[in-house]
C-alpha cells in the first residue's frame, strides 16, 4: 500500500454550542473529506461533539520551543498585569 498520500491532520472538537473548539488529537487521512470522517470515527464515539474542525498539521505555525525563554519568561515577573495585584478602594461600589 502506498504511504505517500497519508497526511497528518489535527482535530478540534466543540462539545456544545457556544463553547470553543478544543484540540482533541490527530488523525491520518488522504484529504479533507477522509480527515473529517476519520476524526468523526475516532473522536466522537461517545457523544463528545457537536462540531469538528480539521487542519493539516503542516499548516500550523508554531513557536520555536528553543525560543521559549525569550518569548515567555519576561512575563513571569510582571505581577501588576494580573488584576489581583490591585486592591479595590473601599468607596467603589460597582466593579
Amino acid at each position, binding site marked *: *500500500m*502506498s504511504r505517500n498520500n497519508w497526511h497528518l491532520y489535527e482535530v478540534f472538537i466543540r462539545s456544545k454550542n457556544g463553547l470553543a473548539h478544543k484540540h482533541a488529537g490527530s488523525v*491520518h487521512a*488522504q484529504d479533507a*473529506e*477522509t480527515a473529517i*470522517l*476519520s476524526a468523526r*470515527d475516532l473522536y466522537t464515539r461517545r457523544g463528545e461533539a457537536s462540531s469538528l474542525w480539521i487542519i493539516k498539521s503542516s499548516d500550523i505555525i508554531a513557536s520555536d520551543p528553543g525560543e521559549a525563554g525569550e518569548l515567555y519568561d519576561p512575563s513571569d515577573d510582571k505581577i501588576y498585569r494580573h488584576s489581583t495585584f490591585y486592591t479595590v478602594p473601599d468607596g467603589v461600589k460597582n466593579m
Partner: protein
Amino acid sequence: MPALEKYIGAKHTRNPHTIYMLRLADNALILGQRLSEMCGHGPEMELDMAMTNMSLDLIGQAKLLFEHILTLEDLAPNADVLALTRPLERYSNCLLVAQPNVDFAHIMLRQFLFSSMQKRQYEALLNSNDSTLAAIAEKSLKEIAYHIRFAKGWVLRLGDGTKESRDRMADALSCLWRFTGEMFTCDARVADAVEAGTSSDFTKTYSDWKLEVKTILSEAGGLTPHENTRMIMGGHFGQHDDNLGHILSDMQFMQLSYPGLEW
C-alpha cells in the same frame, strides 16, 4: 440447559410482520458480524475504527429489531437466543452480506451496495403500521446515511485511483454485482409484509437504485456492471452458500457452548 433445547427455544413464526423483521435483523446482524472480523486488521487505524463503528451500528440495529420481535411474539427467551442459535437454513439474510472480506475494495463495495439498498428499505418502514418499527428505521437511517457516505467515498477513490486500486474495485464489482438482484426482488415475504402494513414496497425503486449506483460506478474510473449478470438468490429463504456457515460457526459457538450465556 442443553444446546438442543435452545434450538427448539427459537420457535418458528408464520406471522408475515415478524418474518419480514427477521429478514431485516439478519441482514444487519450478519453484515455486522462480517465487518467485526476486520477489527484489528484494517489497513490503517482510522479505517479499522471506521469499519468497527459500522459493525457496531449494524449489530445495534439487529439488536433493536430482535428485541422488538420478542415483545410481539414469544419466539425465544431472549434476543441472544433468537439471534445466535438458529440453524443455518433459518437465517433469512440476503447472500450479499455474507460475502467474504477479500480486500478493502470488496468490503467498501459490499457496504455501498448494501447500505444504498438498506436506505430505501428502511425509508419504506417510516409509515409502517408498527410505530416502534418506524422509530427503529428512523434512528437507523442516520447511521445508514453515514455508511453510504463513507463507502461511496472509497468506491470513488479506489475506482478512480491507481491501476491496482481500480483493478481491485473492478474485481469486487464482478464478484458482488450478482448478489444485488436478490435484495430488490419482490418475493412472497415482501408482498405479505406490504399487505400486512409492515412496509411499503421498496422493491419498486430497483431501477432508481440501479441508476444511482451505476452513476457512482461510472464516476469511479468508468466501472460498469456486466449487463447480463445472472442474479443469484436464495438467502432470503435460507438457501445460503458456505460463507454463512463459516460466519455462524464463529458467531454461534459461544451461545451454543454455554447456552443462556449473558454478557
